[in-house]
């Protein structure tokens, strides 16, 4: 059984995580002179190497000094031979110059190193920005399309409704009209699904994921009970917060839970777990670099997903549900939302045994 990873959050690339939001990214790009702040930040990462180099140079200088002081120059200086006094002083001066040069060179090298890191980071931020811009314009496009579709649909469905009011005594016509109504409802469902994708203007606030999951469950628990589905909670207490839009995250959880429900028509177990990742690393260094991530898993004991379908489930309109029942937009939208929160989403599934969807989000 292998994890299929669809989107890998930037958090584990080893660099500093991507900017939290497009605004922050913008701020960084539009203020390239704000190097000081960034230098300090990056310096923390680079400094140990340079301490080492400087230390070695110092040792080297000390070695030279000691060597000369042990030679007969020293004795001769003490004996009052002024030529040797000058030489000793010259060597001392040269050592100082050497140390200064070493400092300048290392500083220069360090700056280059930092600049490279900054350019790399800026590329990351730009990519991030482009992605969120793309998402935003895609959102606008879908909202616009949905609106353009709903207007003519209003006329179609209105005319059909008027016809069926007038022709109740013609069963065949009535049936045809019912079918048209049914199909228009399907179109509305799809456009509304697309529209869900369009509200990309996320209002991110620090949120307690456990709390949010609990609230989502409260919405759906009745449904689950009726379907004979047992809910198991494995929440890590005192979980760090995530910066997220509550509505959007709820939407993700709802879809995952409903998918799990649909996968277990004869009942089963739904397990919701949360955990904190990134603490397990040894030493504090890893914590700093990786940053903690919050893991959320939704596991069911349902029908599972055939290996061949695994790649497709995140595609828009991919559904195995009956026509008119599933839109195939659920996971597509979830994925978009998680991506927009700098998170990652993975799925692990085996046919006949069950499925786990795992989300990781950067912790505050």
């Amino acid at each position, binding site marked *: 059984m292998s994890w299929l990873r669809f989107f890998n959050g930037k958090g584990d690339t080893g660099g500093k995580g991507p900017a939290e939001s497009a605004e922050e990214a913008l701020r960084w790009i539009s203020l390239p002179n704000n190097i000081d702040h960034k230098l300090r930040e990056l310096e923390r990462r680079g400094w140990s190497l340079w301490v080492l180099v400087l230390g070695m140079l110092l040792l080297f200088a000390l070695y030279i000094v000691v060597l000369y002081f042990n030679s007969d120059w020293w004795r001769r200086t003490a004996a009052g031979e002024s030529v040797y006094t000058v030489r000793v002083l010259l060597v001392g001066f040269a050592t100082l110059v050497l140390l200064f040069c070493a400092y300048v060179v290392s500083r220069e090298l360090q700056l280059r190193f930092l600049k490279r890191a900054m350019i790399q980071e800026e590329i990351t931020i730009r990519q991030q920005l482009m992605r969120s811009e793309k998402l935003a314009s895609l959102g606008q496009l879908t*909202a616009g399309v*949905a*609106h353009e579709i*709903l*207007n*003519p*649909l*209003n*006329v*179609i*469905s*209105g*005319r059909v*409704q*008027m016809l069926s*009011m007038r022709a109740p005594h013609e069963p065949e016509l009535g049936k045809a009209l019912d079918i048209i109504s049914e199909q*228009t409802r399907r179109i*509305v469902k799809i456009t*509304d699904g697309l*529209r*869900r994708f*369009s*509200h990309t*203007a996320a209002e991110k606030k620090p949120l307690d994921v456990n709390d949010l999951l609990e609230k989502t469950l409260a919405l759906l628990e009745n449904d689950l009970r009726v379907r004979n589905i047992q809910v198991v909670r494995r929440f890590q207490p005192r979980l760090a917060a995530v910066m997220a839009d509550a509505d959007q995250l709820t939407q993700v959880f709802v879809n995952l839970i409903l998918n799990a429900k649909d996968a277990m028509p004869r009942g089963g177990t739904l397990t919701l777990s949360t955990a904190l990742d990134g603490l397990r690393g040894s030493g504090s260094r890893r914590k700093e670099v990786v940053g903690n991530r919050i893991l959320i898993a939704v596991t069911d004991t349902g029908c599972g997903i055939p290996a061949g379908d695994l790649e497709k489930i995140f595609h828009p309109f991919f559904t195995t549900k009956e026509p008119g029942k599933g839109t195939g937009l659920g996971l597509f939208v979830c994925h978009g939302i998680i991506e927009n929160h700098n998170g990652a989403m993975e799925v692990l599934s085996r046919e006949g045994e069950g499925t786990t969807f795992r989300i990781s989000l950067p912790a505050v």
Partner: protein
Amino acid sequence: METKSILVVEDEEEQRELFKEFLELHGYEVTTAVNGYEALGAVRVSEPDLMILDVILPKENGYRVCRMVKEDQHNRRLQKSFPVLLVTARRLDAHPDRETMFQDFSQADGVLYKPVRLEELLEWVRSLMRGEKVTARHPD
């Protein structure tokens, strides 16, 4: 009982015709306007018993028309305080600012989402004319 009049403001002919035909079928007298200006003019010439307003209109949009009408009613520049029903293909969360959208909407007496269920429309028209409140049901 005298026939009640309804003003339908819609820029698309087909939409206008649909509402007109349907409402006339149920015994209302229907006049139409194709944009915000026309609507404001029509209201001043003869006040309807109810106004049905599309949100996206050329020239003044539906919200603004609605607000102006409500203001005029408030200032007694209009005599009847007839109800206004907004009809829109928009959805709340497609709006960049949900709060103002709610405010915009709150000026109107009701909001129906396209595609409209005609029975619901009729029900709402009847309750609004009786002076009753209707509660919007956002599709979701």
